[in-house]
C-alpha cells in the first residue's frame, strides 16, 4: 500500500488510465463523492475529477504518494485503511474504492465493513489467489506464487491476507453485503462479468472487481 504501483496491478493503459482503474471508473456515476483508499499517486482521483466531475478524495499510506497528490492539487490525506476509515460518518461518500489493497490490511473484514458503511457503494478489487497460475505454482512446483500479479517473494510481501474470488464472495454473503456487480480480469486486463458461475471466474480471473453495497435494513 505504498505509493508505488500496488501488487497485482495491470500496468497497460487505455484512454490515459490504467485498465483496472478504468474499469473502476466506469462503475462510478458522474458527479459522485468518491473516496479512494490507497490512492497511490492519485491517478484515479484525478481521472474521476476531470472526466466524471467527481468530488474525489484519497487516503494513502505512503507520504511520497500523498505529497505528490497534494502538490498536484488533489485532496489526499496520509492515512491507513485499517485505522482511519472508522472516523468517517455513515454514507459520507457515494463510492469508496479499495483497489488491490484489502489483502494488505491487518483486519480485512473490518475494513470491508467500514467501506460499505461510509460509502453508499464500495468498489473493491482483489488479486485472486485461486487463479490457475497460482494453483499451478503451488500444486506443481510447490512454491509460493510469484508472477506479474503477485510480484513479491513470501518474505517481503505486504500481502498478508490473501483470498480467492470465491472466498471474497462468500465473506460478502456472510456479512450481508450485496454484490451488485462482479467482474473478473484476465491476465491481459480483459474484463468479464460473472454472475452465479463462480467457477470460471475463480480459475481464470487474475483479479476480481466488485461493486458492493450493504443490505438495506428492511
Amino acid at each position: 500500500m505504498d505509493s508505488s504501483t500496488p501488487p497485482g496491478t495491470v500496468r497497460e493503459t487505455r484512454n490515459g488510465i490504467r485498465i483496472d482503474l478504468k474499469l473502476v471508473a466506469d462503475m462510478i456515476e458522474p458527479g459522485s463523492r468518491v473516496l479512494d483508499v490507497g490512492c497511490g499517486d492519485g491517478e484515479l482521483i484525478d481521472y474521476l475529477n476531470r472526466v466524471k466531475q467527481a468530488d474525489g478524495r484519497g487516503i494513502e499510506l505512503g507520504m511520497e504518494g500523498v505529497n505528490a497528490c497534494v502538490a498536484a492539487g488533489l485532496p489526499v490525506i496520509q492515512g491507513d485503511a485499517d485505522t482511519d476509515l472508522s472516523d468517517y460518518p455513515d454514507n459520507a461518500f457515494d463510492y469508496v474504492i479499495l483497489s488491490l489493497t484489502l489483502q494488505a490490511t491487518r483486519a480485512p473484514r473490518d475494513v470491508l465493513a467500514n467501506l460499505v458503511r461510509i460509502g453508499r457503494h464500495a468498489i473493491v478489487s482483489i488479486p485472486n489467489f485461486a487463479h490457475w497460475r497460482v494453483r499451478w505454482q503451488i500444486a506443481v512446483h510447490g512454491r509460493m506464487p510469484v508472477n506479474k500479479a503477485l510480484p513479491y517473494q513470501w518474505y517481503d510481501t505486504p500481502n498478508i491476507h490473501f483470498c480467492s474470488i470465491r472466498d471474497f464472495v462468500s465473506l460478502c454473503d456472510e456479512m450481508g453485503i450485496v454484490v451488485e456487480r462482479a467482474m473478473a480480469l484476465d491476465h491481459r486486463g480483459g474484463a468479464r462479468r460473472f454472475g452465479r458461475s463462480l467457477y470460471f471466474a475463480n480459475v481464470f480471473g487474475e483479479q476480481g472487481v466488485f461493486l458492493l453495497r450493504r443490505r438495506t435494513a428492511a
Partner: protein
Amino acid sequence: MAPLKSRSLAEWDARSLPGHQVVLGQAVPLTLDCGTELRDFTVAYQTYGTLNAQRSNAILICHALTGDQFVAETHPVTGKPGWWSTLVGPGRVIDTDRFFVVCSNILGGCMGTAGPTDLNPQTNKPWALDFPVITIRDMVRAQAMLIDHLGIDRLFAVIGGSLGGMQVLEWASSYPDRMFAAVPIATAAHHTAQNIAFHELGRQAIMADPDWRGGNYQLEGVRPERGLAVARMAGHITYLSEAALTRKFGRRLQNRDELTYGFDADFQVESYLRHQGSTFVDRFDANSYLYITRAMDYFDLAARHSGVLAEAFRGSPVRFCVISFTSDWLYPTAECRTIVHALNAAAANVSFVEITSDQGHDSFLLEEPEFFRVMTGFIDGAAERYGLGRSAER
C-alpha cells in the same frame, strides 16, 4: 525604508509604523469572550497585491505569536526581511501577482493593533493589565470586522502557522461560509498541558522581572527586558529541535578554545539564545507576550462543541490542507492528525501532509522545498476550483 529607531519599543510609536490602520467597533462594539465590549479599537494591517473586480482573490494570512503584519517586506523595526517573504510575494507560492494578501496585527499585539500597550481612553494611561483578556476567537472576530471593512464577502483562503494555524481553524469553524480554503500549518486544535507549561514558564519569567512593576512598566519608564528575554529564550528552544541545535551548534565553544569555568556563554548555543532574547525585547512588548500566550492557552476548539472537535466543522464547505512537520515537537504531527480525524468525521474536504524536516516547529517559517511544493499544489488546485484559474507554469 530605513528601520525606525530600534533601541526600545517604548521609544517608537506603533501608530507611526507603515501600513494601514483602521478603527473598528465604532457602530457595533466587539464583544469579547470575557464579556467586555471593545469599542473604537485600532487594527493595523498590511496588504500585498490587488483585489480583483469580483473581490474573490483575497487571502488572509494569520501571523504567529511573535509575528506581525509585515509578512513580505523589510520589517520597519528590525530591518530584516518579512517573516514569510520566502513564501509570499510576486511569483512566489502565495503569489501577490494573483492574490490580494491581507495580514493584520492580532488583537493584543504590539504593532499597532489594540493591545495592552495602547492608551486606555478612560484613563489616558496605558491599558497594561486592565486590557481585557482576549481569546483566539476574539482575534478572529476582529479580523472578520477588518474583512468587512475591506468589502470582502468571502476570502479565497485563510492561511497561517502555529498560533496563525489556530486562527485558521477558528475562522473555518466560525465563518465557514466566508472562506473557500483553509491552510492550518504546524498547529493544534487545543493547547496541551505541555504547551501551557512552556507558556507559563515564559510568563513567570516576565512577571519575576522587578522591572515588570505589576505590568505598569510603561508608566514607570522601565521595561522588563530580562524577563522577556528569558521568556523568548525558553520559547525559542521549543521552536527548534535537538537535531537542528546539534547541527547548528553541537557542543562548540563561543569565541574561545577552552571552558572558562564560569557562567559566561561558553557554548555557542548559549550565545545564540542570549542573542535571540536580547534582540526580541527590541521589537516586542512583555504584556503583549502575556496576553497572546494566554489566548493560546485558552484555545480549545472542541470544548465549545461538547468536546467533539468534528462538531466544530460539521457540514463545512471549506477545503482544508493541514500540514505538519516531522521534527515539530511543540505542535507534533499527532495534533494535526487529530484535526484531520475530526475533519474526516465531519466529511470535510481535507488534504493532509507531513513534511520531513529536522528544523522543528520553525520549519513553517523556513524555505522547505517539499512544504513549498505542497502549498503551491494545494493553492493552485483550490484556485482552479474556486474559478480563479490555474497559475502560469513556474
